[in-house]
């Protein structure tokens, strides 16, 4: 029984040490801007999450290495593993918010929903780049949440617009069947209200094929239904292991791949490659650059990846999801820079960051300066519009890599915007008393 005594003693000592560490807030460096990165490199969504995490980390790390941070102040980066799990995400949030966090990028609609009410209370903005709550684009109701450059509703309207173009006009959608296969979670259900509205307006039939998180890798029943229903087009809102499975199944039932369109999160290189030769022609929306032919990405390779400061595999630089992560970090970095300009401070707070993001103006000249000319559509955030409803393009898989297959397609802002405002008002009403906006507008 001596061993048990030792174990008990050892555990007690370890617990004591740990708790004393937890109880005292970690002294933070005074001369750095702290950016926590909620990432996931484990779990069923890791296949997508790793590329995003690498992209986000590498760009910010590169700024540290190449320029010594932003405005002469280094960035202090810390990754916290969420595993795409809302509980762990909140845990990461609670663990890091006390260290002077500037902004949160949850990379999960579930975690975003939990952080939205907290953002205004803790005065730390949430940047959900192209995901999360669509209604959060209404900056007058959600001053602390940003979803540049697009909401899911923008994306859904672009898909329908693109399909309309293929059919020779939106009026020709009448009587067509459009299938919608989605991850049955907050993420996949987010665009349904808009799609239903569009279905009513243009007279097409919307067929829904939900895929539960547990059955992501076994979608044969959904695709059996697809084969029976014979939709004219398929639209996918998938993530993680769901994407390659869906593409494989589509190939298996010989669904015409050029009529299969994914959201920007179903646009990973590994996702499409899983379908093999048959996946040729698969399309996906995108708003971040294709390929690695950008000076900033070369800098990342030189200063970070080749220097061994990252776990990125050099061949994955330039992949869709990697570039998406880079774009996310570009927005963070530009937000910090704008905040520094607005406040004149070097080390900023979450409140300053909110102003910086709200005054974000990423025009073509600036993108060129960053070494990312043509990497994204110019973005301008206003106090009312936190998404910007920016155009997206369609890319096509040619069997080996993604190729841009269309110009920039504007979302149907006239249709989406009133719905967004209505949804924002409804959210505020449901969560009454939702605090009214008191934050001044920096523009």
């Amino acid at each position, binding site marked *: 029984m001596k061993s*048990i005594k030792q174990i008990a003693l050892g555990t007690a000592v370890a617990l004591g040490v740990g708790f004393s*560490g937890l109880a005292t807030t970690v002294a933070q460096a005074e001369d750095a801007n702290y950016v926590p990165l909620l990432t996931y490199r484990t779990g069923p969504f890791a296949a997508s999450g790793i590329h995003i995490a690498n992209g986000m980390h590498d760009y910010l790390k590169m700024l540290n290495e190449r320029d010594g941070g932003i405005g002469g102040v280094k960035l202090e980066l810390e990754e916290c593993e969420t595993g795409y799990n809302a*509980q762990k995400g*909140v845990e990461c949030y609670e*663990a890091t918010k006390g260290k002077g966090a500037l902004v949160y990028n949850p990379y999960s609609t579930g975690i975003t*929903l939990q952080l939205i*009410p907290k953002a205004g209370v803790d005065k730390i903005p949430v940047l959900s780049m192209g995901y999360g709550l669509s209604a959060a684009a209404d900056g007058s109701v959600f001053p602390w949440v940003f979803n540049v450059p697009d909401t899911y509703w923008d994306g859904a309207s672009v898909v329908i617009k693109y399909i309309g173009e293929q059919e020779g006009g939106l009026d020709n959608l009448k009587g067509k069947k459009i299938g919608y296969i989605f991850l049955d979670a*907050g993420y996949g259900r987010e665009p349904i209200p808009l799609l239903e509205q569009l279905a009513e307006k243009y007279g097409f039939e919307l067929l829904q094929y939900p895929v539960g998180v*547990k059955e992501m890798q076994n979608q044969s029943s959904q695709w059996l239904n697809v084969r029976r229903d014979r939709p004219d087009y398929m639209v996918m809102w998938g993530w993680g292991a769901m994407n390659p499975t869906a593409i494989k199944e589509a190939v298996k039932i010989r669904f015409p791949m050029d009529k299969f369109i994914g959201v920007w999160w179903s646009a990973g290189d590994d996702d499409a490659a899983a379908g093999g030769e048959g996946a040729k022609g698969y399309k996906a929306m995108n708003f971040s650059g294709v390929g690695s032919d950008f000076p900033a990405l070369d800098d990342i390779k030189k200063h970070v990846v080749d220097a061994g400061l990252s776990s990125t595999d050099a061949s994955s630089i330039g992949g869709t999801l990697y570039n998406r992560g880079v774009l996310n970090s570009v927005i963070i970095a530009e937000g910090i820079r704008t905040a520094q300009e607005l406040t004149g401070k070097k080390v900023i707070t979450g409140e300053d960051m909110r102003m910086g993001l709200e005054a974000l103006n990423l025009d073509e000249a600036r993108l060129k300066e960053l070494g990312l000319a043509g990497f994204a559509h110019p973005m301008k955030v206003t106090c009312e519009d936190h998404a910007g409803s920016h155009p997206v393009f369609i890319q096509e898989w040619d069997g080996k890599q993604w190729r841009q297959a269309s110009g920039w397609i504007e979302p149907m802002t006239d249709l989406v915007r009133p719905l967004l405002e209505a949804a924002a008002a409804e959210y505020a009403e449901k969560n009454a008393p939702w605090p009214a906006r008191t934050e001044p507008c920096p523009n």
Partner: protein
Amino acid sequence: MFYREAGQFKTSYKADQALMPILQDRVGLLVILAVAFVVIPVFANDFFLTSIMIPFLVFSLAAIGLNVLTGFCGQLSLGTGAFMGVGAYAAYKLTSIFPDANVILMVLLSGVFSAAIGAVFGLPSLRIKGLYLAVTTLAAQFFLEWCFIRIPWLYNYNASGAIEIPHREAFGVVVSGAEATPIVRYFIVLGITALIAYLMANVLRGRIGRSWMMIRDMDIAAELMGIRPLQTKLMAFAVSSYICGVAGAMMVFFWLNAAEPSSYSISLSFQILFMVILGGLGSLSGAFMGAAFIWILPVFLKFIPGTIGINVAAETVEHITFMIVGALIIFFLIVEPHGFARLWQIAKQKLRVWPFPY
């Protein structure tokens, strides 16, 4: 020597039948309560309260709930997560139907719905036992989870399919929603958990608890001695589901603030079951110890390297945590298959005879 009741004489039956007849136990409990109600609120920071203490108490309560059913009545259940979900959705609907009512009351009331549903799914337990019963409770898990996803009325037709907890006040303080301070939420969770644990401690050693244990140990013998299996088993299901339902409602109201159906998935059921098994079947203190082991240890391991300044990649920490916790589970189950509660009992015995073990 340290834990010896010699010399503690009882002069009345009442004193002899007290919940804790031994002085050391009473002192120990008072110390624990003092730490929980005074020391932790005074010294702990927000992270400690929201990410460690609140979830720990919620899981402890859920583990008590499952322990009533599995540990005391011997009915294996894999539907705990779903019963917790019923409590959460019921409390959510109640607060949206009665926005002015006290949230704490609603949370306590939500358990009634969970109890009713638990009793319905407990009906098969009259005919089937053991692993077969686990399968029918598994059906409850999947069916209820399906309801949480497919019945939009349950989540007020929210586009994202999640329930979001509104801002509510009780007794003049904000108790739910984002503005609720961790300390307020902690006190509510602690109060409810302590209250239910106290009630259960009394129920379990009384007539009802004993009848559950008779059913567990040998149901035919229990029947011959006049215990009615139908009522007893269903009562165990109802009480267990009530406690789990309250725990589930507290989970979303005072800890997470928003929940998707996946928060109440089968993995939650397993998590609670592991807490019960590791803590010790048929032991209330075991429920707390099991919850501490399954919830606090991984959080703790995850944030240790950062706090003591070792720079390890986040995913490596996650992997190492998985391995350590897994290895420890196997280790403890080999050392003591009856869980931490039994280990604690052995330790008490050692303390009693120390320093002259025999």
